[in-house]
């Protein structure tokens, strides 16, 4: 970071651009996250609207994954982690006393960096969520959910003849689409994706990106990515994180063609990061 950029970061008190949208699906306000005494997220406010893809970009360690994991309380599994501020889903406080994180995660699904299919058949991988949540009353309904989810994830045609094969027998890109199908199967309202393509080759990546665009019709999506091209291709709005602060958030086109903040400009033009 050069001198002027350092100053720009030190002087940063408020996010540049429009962090809020009308009728948000999820709204976060003044979120601070601590690991023990170490603060990982500083005062971040960001909305995720209906039927939009929000991309979160930024250099490694900027806190974008940590922020994403706050949105479905996955950070609860880390004992030293503490979250402050307000996060709401349809106006309901995520960290409120009445909210059951287990039920929340059925509404806010997550796709991880590395494909992580269970040691089960393809069918059982997808049927896992509907089964534990009792979403189907008989086998035919479950079959429908599984087929539908696999179709939405663009995987059905490739695996329809071997639904009994283990999920781990698929290729990396297929495994990731299986994981997406798995999260679609519980009909979440929001899907969080943590660098879903970082372990995949360009062709598999292109498939997933197409898929993300289709999924936008039915879900709100937040995606963390290291690839700026990917952010530009799939998202409607882009948020730039830097060292735990949200520097700038705006329409994707605006961020990439006309960044307002010096740090954002430096990052997207490849001067650092």
């Amino acid at each position, binding site marked *: 970071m050069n001198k002027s950029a350092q100053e720009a970061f030190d002087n940063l008190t408020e996010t540049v651009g429009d962090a809020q949208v009308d009728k948000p699906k999820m709204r976060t306000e003044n979120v601070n996250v601590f690991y023990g005494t170490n603060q990982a997220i500083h005062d971040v406010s960001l909305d995720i609207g209906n039927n939009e893809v929000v991309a979160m970009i930024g250099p490694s360690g900027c806190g974008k994954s940590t922020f994403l994991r706050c949105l479905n309380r996955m950070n609860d*599994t880390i004992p030293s982690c503490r979250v402050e501020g307000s996060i709401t889903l349809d106006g309901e406080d995520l960290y409120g006393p009445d909210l059951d994180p287990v039920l929340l995660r*059925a509404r806010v*699904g997550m796709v991880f960096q590395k494909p*992580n299919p*269970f*040691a089960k058949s393809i069918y059982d991988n997808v049927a896992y969520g509907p089964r*534990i949540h009792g979403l189907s009353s008989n086998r035919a309904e479950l079959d429908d959910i599984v087929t539908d989810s696999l179709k939405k994830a663009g995987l059905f045609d490739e695996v329809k003849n071997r639904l009994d094969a283990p999920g781990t027998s698929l290729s990396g890109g297929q495994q990731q689409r299986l994981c997406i199908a798995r999260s679609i199967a*519980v009909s979440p309202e929001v899907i969080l994706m943590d660098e879903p393509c970082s372990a995949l080759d360009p062709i598999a990546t292109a498939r997933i990106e197409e898929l993300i665009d289709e999924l936008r019709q039915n879900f709100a999506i937040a995606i963390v990515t290291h690839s700026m091209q990917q952010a530009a291709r799939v998202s409607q709005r882009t948020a730039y994180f830097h060292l735990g602060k949200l520097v700038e958030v705006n329409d994707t086109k605006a961020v990439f063609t006309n960044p307002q903040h010096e740090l954002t400009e430096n990052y997207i033009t490849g001067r650092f990061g």
Partner: protein
Amino acid sequence: MSATTLVLVAIALAALSFAYGRMQAFQVASKHGGMKSMHSLPSHYGMMVALWCALPALAIIIGWKLIEPTVISSVLDGSIPQEIVDAGPKTIELYKNDIGNLVDSDKISGIADAGKKLAAEKLRGLRHISSVALMILALCVAVVGASLALKRIKPNTRARVTVEKIVRFFLIGSASIAILTTVGIVASVIFESLRFFQQVDFFDFVAGTQWSPQTAIRADQAGSSGSFGAVPLFVGTLLISFIAMIVAVPFGLLSAIYLAEYASRRVRSIVKPLLEILAGIPTVVYGFFAALTVAPAIRHVGESIGLSVSSESALAAGAVMGIMIIPFVSSLSDDVITAVPQAMRDGSYGLGSTKSETIRQVVIPAALPGIVGGILLAASRAIGETMIVVMAAGLAAKITANPLEAVTTVTVQIVTLLTGDQEFDSAKTLAAFALGLMLFVVTLCLNVIALQVVRKYREQYE
């Protein structure tokens, strides 16, 4: 000088040569412009000298000691009295043995027979000459070897290559000793079993249901036939192992799940070693615990509800054996459960499942092959276990599925067949080898399957 002292001296010489060779390497190096000009490190040159000093000397000592008795014995043949020679080879052997013993126990002066005394003195003289010759030869070889090697300390001598080659042979040798021992044990068991099957039909042994291994010592003895049907023993073994697994699998698995998924780091660091102590208790302690505490308790409880329980029961032995093998199940299962990637748990939590759903439906299925491997290893341990069943299971060879009766196992029968005074070539004694072979085959199969399963599981996540 005895052979042991000689070996020690050779080793001491080798140590000395190491130090000297290393020093020499430094000196040679300084003449040729520093350590950089030498192919190997000074310690390699030292090691080379030491090996040249010790290995030929040790080889000579071992070779000498191997052929020495034969040579001395043949030289001694000349001084054996004619009447002994006439009496045949067995008597000669006996006579030589006698002389050897007299020399060993230093009682030559007390020998009354003049001929014998002469032979003994000759033997003592021969042994003395042999040991002195060996000492001189070995020491010469050691010194010559070391000095030859010292001369070879030059910049282009590849001492490291030589030393590492020799070290590799030592390692191969050490590994093959363990393997050869196993092969030897298996071979001896197989050959004795073959002798047994010459006397008893193989199918009578494997499929027979009557076990009473009493064979006649005298021809006129009553009840002499003996029958060697091993089925009751295997039924007893399986019954007790089954009871042990019923105890060990649930407790072991549940404690492994608690340790891997729920226990805090602190609790885990205390509880896991405590559990593993169970495996360290001597089995004889488990044995009298089973025989003196558990068996009477079971009998008492059984009688109070009107069941007839024998004082030695399969239940008592099996239950205590189950406690003993809990750590086998729990420790291995704990390892494989911990090895299930966190990403898989995250994936399950991310779909909105609870911790217990995640464990039951994601973690355990993923760890299942490893858990099965652990259980099979525990089972083979249970089948081969001896002390507990000797003390608590009884000796009654009967085919029963009632855990309250006394049964007997393969291992118990092997113990009873081989302890005490036995005629070695009787079918009764040889039966022990046949039983041992069967037991070995069964546990070997279990172990192979278990290791195969565990390995398959490892491949999945690497």
